[in-house]
């Protein structure tokens, strides 16, 4: 064991000396690994960024909220079976709440009605198109994850009374009120004025696809007064204990069947959706993007590895006589194998560290220049890069090192 350690430290010293005496060659060879590691690391940061964005987007839905709607949150082949389902009505929420209150030890906490439609929001000369107008009740705030940039949500009184009040999303408030506060001003939707009570702080976008901030939330009665046509209703149900999500889902299905008055032989004519189901639909897509990305960038690392292998073969050839001498002095096969493996690994590690530094600086730069670009540099990534570098060194160095260790000492000593 001790002997192995001495051989290891000896090999390491030789490797460093070797790199220093062949600076140009070592740098050029390491460049292949540097490029490979930069590519793989940047891909890693992008995947990390996507993952974080994905989790953030998922968190918007809440892991303790069930969504009762007409459609399931996944691709269905038999869409015609869903198209003709009865629309979900906001009134269901009241019935559900009544039943929840009557059920002892219910797994459900509260049902919130929502109804949504897309409209244009105006203020004086400015307007924002395609804004999600959502009518709901004051308890909606319980099921949501957002904070307020300024102002407040509407209270129960305003909610029940159906006052013409609203709360603006960031992407609505910002263009309409670039330099002043929108609080207590009135925006026009469908020609109707709504007094602004608050502004929701920036939420970002859902998977980078559509903004979660192009939204206006108002009391349900006011919504129903002006926007009933073509609106989509959905009932949000908060679960008491998110570890019992499955039980809660079953209970909710039962309650919904009672609300709908379905006889036992009929199938559910509604869908209960949850974050997890959406996640399991989107996860494979996200994962295949990650795998494809890593594979393609991995190819550049592979090219780097071939460079290392090539240069190690050259090194073995050049130093055949030295290998012969070492063998004559008592170096075993393992010793020679180790020496060349360490040389190729040292080269890869050097490339790995330089590559990592470049990648870090690039991430830093990209993060500064494009704050919204999903990028995430983590310690795990650093560790992974170092491991990948070492593995690259070992794999690419193995064939040449093996050749060296098998050299016949007599032939090697005679080699000129």
């Amino acid at each position: 064991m001790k002997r192995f350690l001495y051989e290891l430290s000896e090999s390491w010293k030789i490797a460093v000396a070797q790199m220093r005496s062949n600076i140009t060659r070592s740098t050029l060879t390491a460049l292949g690994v540097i490029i490979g590691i930069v590519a793989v690391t940047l891909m890693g940061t992008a995947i990390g960024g996507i993952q974080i964005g994905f989790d953030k987007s998922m968190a918007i839905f809440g892991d303790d909220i069930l969504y009762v709607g007409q459609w399931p949150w996944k691709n269905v082949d038999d869409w015609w079976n869903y198209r003709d389902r009865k629309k979900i009505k906001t009134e269901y929420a009241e019935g559900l709440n009544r039943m929840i209150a009557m059920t002892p030890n219910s797994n459900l906490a509260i049902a919130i009605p929502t109804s949504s439609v897309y409209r244009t929001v105006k203020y004086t000369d400015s307007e924002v198109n395609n804004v999600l107008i959502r009518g709901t009740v004051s308890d909606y705030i319980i099921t949501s994850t957002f904070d307020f940039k300024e102002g407040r949500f509407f209270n129960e009184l305003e909610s029940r009374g159906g006052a013409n009040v609203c709360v603006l999303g960031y992407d609505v408030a910002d263009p309409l009120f670039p330099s002043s506060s929108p609080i207590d001003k009135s925006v026009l939707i469908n020609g109707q004025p709504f007094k602004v009570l608050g502004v929701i702080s920036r939420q970002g976008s859902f998977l980078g696809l559509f903004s979660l901030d192009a939204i206006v939330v108002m009391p349900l009665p006011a919504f129903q007064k002006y926007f009933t046509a073509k609106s989509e209703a959905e009932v949000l149900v908060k679960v008491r204990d998110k570890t019992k999500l499955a039980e809660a889902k079953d209970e909710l299905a039962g309650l919904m069947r009672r609300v709908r008055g379905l006889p036992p032989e009929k199938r559910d004519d509604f869908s209960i959706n949850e974050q997890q189901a959406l996640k399991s639909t989107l996860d494979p897509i996200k994962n295949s993007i990650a795998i494809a990305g890593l594979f393609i960038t991995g190819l550049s690392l592979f090219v780097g590895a071939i460079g290392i292998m090539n240069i190690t073969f050259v090194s073995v050839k050049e130093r055949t006589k030295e290998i012969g001498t070492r063998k004559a002095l008592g170096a075993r096969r393992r010793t020679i194998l180790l020496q060349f493996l360490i040389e190729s690994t040292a080269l890869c590690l050097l490339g790995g560290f330089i590559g990592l530094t470049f990648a870090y600086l690039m991430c830093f730069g990209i993060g500064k220049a494009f704050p919204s670009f999903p990028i995430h540099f983590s310690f795990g990534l650093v560790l992974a890069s170092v491991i990948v570098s070492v593995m690259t060194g070992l794999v690419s160095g193995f064939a040449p090192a093996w050749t060296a260790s098998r050299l016949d000492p007599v032939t090697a000593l005679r080699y000129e």
Partner: protein
Amino acid sequence: MNTLNSDATRSRGPIVIDIENITKDYIMGEEVVHALSGVSLQIHSNEYVAIMGPSGSGKSTLMNMFGCLDTPTSGRYEFNGKNVAAMDDDELAAIRNREIGFVFQTFNLLPRSTSLRNVELPLIYAGMDPETREERATQALVDVGLGDRIHHKPNELSGGQRQRVAIARALVNDPSIILADEPTGNLDSKTGEEIMALFEDLYQRGHTIILVTHEADIARHARRTVHLRDGLIESDEVGVMPAMESMAAS
């Protein structure tokens, strides 16, 4: 004459190298070359033997056998009583490391390492700890008269000094035999004589030396000369050294 007589009749130590009827065949393309065709030889501890012969006589092959760099095609080879012919590569490496000190014609030093590191190399392979290693390597360099060149690299040393480093490296593990292959081949005659004087000194201190050379002048320093021709021993002469005899006569 008295010293020479006592030298020739000096009581011989135990047998170090014992080969019996060894052969070595090489396959060159379609042809089989018989490099050694049945050589038997015994070398005792504290002998000073020169192996001579023209090129193609098999002396290099025999040296590779002695050095455990190669194994015979047939025949028996015992080194210190151990059967070398049956050893695998790593066992041979261990024998080379502990029992044999190599001195090459081209010195074979590691160019980028200091004298000290070059001499330490066999000790590293022997698994010795760094402190003892440095101590012993330094002592070996002092012993060959290079105490002031410990941290010099080969390209900062003269040919004679390089060969001294190589001899220190050969000695550092306190081997059973020192195997020198044309040790003066790359040196001028004056430096060559210095190196031969160093070998003489080592022999006087009790080392066993096997010298492989084609130069009669160099072989004269040995106490026993084995001539090879066509893979066979042509003559094996012990005792009187012509060089010294002529010196004594004059």
